[in-house]
């Protein structure tokens, strides 16, 4: 159950042209925060209407109110499981990103490495967690968190690798000419040109990897390892009719994912303040 395990975005380092174009009104900054909240309230309202008023929603989709109640009531045990899953995801994110940086650097430096890695990375990107987790658990032991951390590592590796490799190749011809004409060494070119150009891509990769690491760590729990963590709990309670409790755990998972996402988004913001024009 790989979910978005290999989703990666076509790296958007620069995003929009700064400021609104002609004809586009400048929106007040507070809307940035209010808009998602309003949409969130709308979603909740429709959900509540569907579940509590119409009553036609499937049984496994409880009312958000019930979910919130369960979440508050069971918060201590949910928190314990959140810590486990979050730790696994964090380890996966860090290790996966470091490996991705290393390999992307190698691939960018040497075409043969790039050529050799290409099919392997593509394959890794499409291998379902349901297939890979049992394999890892058998190879590395099912009683530790290792399998989950490894799955999260793979999930994080892919988008970071792809984005960084792409970023490492985004340098503009005129800039490459400049560095070349300055006889800059390979390392200097990397430090002065390649790295600053790739940095926004790295950050984008990290941002994507953050949510993927969380979902991968969570989903891997379905397929073995210690009976703890958010994923184990979701499976357990979804199957024993405790939909609200299961969804309360889902909420816990979403919170972990959001925290990861917000932190990496913040990092990305910092890194892309001035990106290639």
């Amino acid at each position: 159950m790989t979910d978005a395990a290999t989703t990666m975005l076509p790296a958007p380092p620069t995003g929009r042209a700064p400021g609104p174009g002609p004809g586009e009104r400048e929106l007040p900054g507070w809307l940035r925060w209010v808009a998602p909240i309003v949409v969130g309230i709308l979603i909740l309202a429709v959900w509540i209407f569907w579940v509590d008023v119409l009553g036609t929603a499937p049984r496994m989709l409880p009312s958000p109110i019930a979910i919130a109640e369960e979440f508050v009531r069971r918060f201590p045990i949910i928190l314990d499981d959140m810590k486990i899953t979050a730790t696994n995801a964090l380890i996966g994110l860090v290790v996966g990103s470091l490996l991705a940086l290393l390999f992307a650097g190698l691939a960018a430096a040497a075409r043969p490495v790039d050529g050799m890695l290409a099919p392997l990375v593509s394959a890794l990107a499409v291998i379902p967690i349901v297939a890979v987790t049992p394999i890892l658990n058998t190879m590395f032991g099912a009683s530790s968190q290792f399998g989950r951390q490894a799955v999260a590592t793979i999930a994080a590796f892919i988008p970071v690798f792809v984005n960084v490799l792409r970023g490492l190749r985004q340098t503009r011809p005129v800039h490459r000419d400049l560095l070349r004409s300055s006889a800059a060494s390979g390392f200097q070119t990397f430090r002065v040109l390649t790295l600053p150009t790739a940095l926004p891509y790295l950050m984008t990769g990290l941002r994507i990897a953050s949510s993927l690491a969380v979902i991968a760590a969570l989903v891997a729990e379905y397929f073995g390892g210690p009976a703890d963590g958010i994923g184990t709990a979701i499976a357990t309670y979804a199957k024993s009719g405790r939909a609200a409790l299961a969804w309360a755990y889902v909420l816990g998972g979403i919170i972990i994912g959001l925290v990861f996402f917000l932190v990496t988004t913040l990092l990305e913001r910092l890194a892309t303040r001035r990106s290639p024009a």
Partner: protein
Amino acid sequence: MMDLAVHAAGVGKVFPTKTGEVVALTEVDLEVAAGEFVSLIGPSGCGKSTLLRLIADLDQATSGTLEIFGKPAKRARIDQDYGIAFQQAGLLPWRTVAANIGLPLELHGTSKAERSTRIAELAELVGLSDFVDRYPDQLSGGMQQRVAIARALAAQPRLLLMDEPFGALDEMTRERLQSELTRIAAETSAAVVFVTHSIPEAVFLSDRVVVMSPRPGRITDVIETGLGEQRDEALRESAAFFDRVTAVREALHGSPVVRAGES
């Protein structure tokens, strides 16, 4: 031969495109002595930029031989024998004006203190002292080009390659920079290969003006200006100057023209 800054013999460059090959340069023979100032002039698309890129070892010639200070172009590039200013400014957008100017120095390990005096000097020279902390996207087109010029001068190279560096500058700034450039070239006895579209500019600056022609790009004429060392305001009004301008114009247009007072 060690006195030659640039020695090109039978240099040609062909670009392959989907619709066939484009011959950008054929049979270019060019010698630029150390300390000599040579301008390249010619209609748009005649291969001036291409030739400059070959000299800078940013592209490889498809035929002929090319030596810079007696060594292969690649060696010269690695030895940092030249500084270059491109037709587009090519500033690094995440660096301030000062950091852009200082880039070559940084790359060659100049100490920080030395670097900042030099940056201040160069910013002064191109009239951007007030803008050193700005980022490129906050500059006008001409300002960006001036930063690129300062950057090319930073490392005080023995050979300067400049591709229409003054194209987007107003007359006053342009004249000031022309004077500065000749002064700097003379002081550091650097050779300069200078691409321009302005005949008076080419004549004013150069020891020799190389006239090029397109389709295929080649050298059609070389005009010695013989105007001596003195490059000052008086020269701009001398008869010898007008004479040379006319000569270049004729070489360029292929027929005698007598005219003055326009760019």
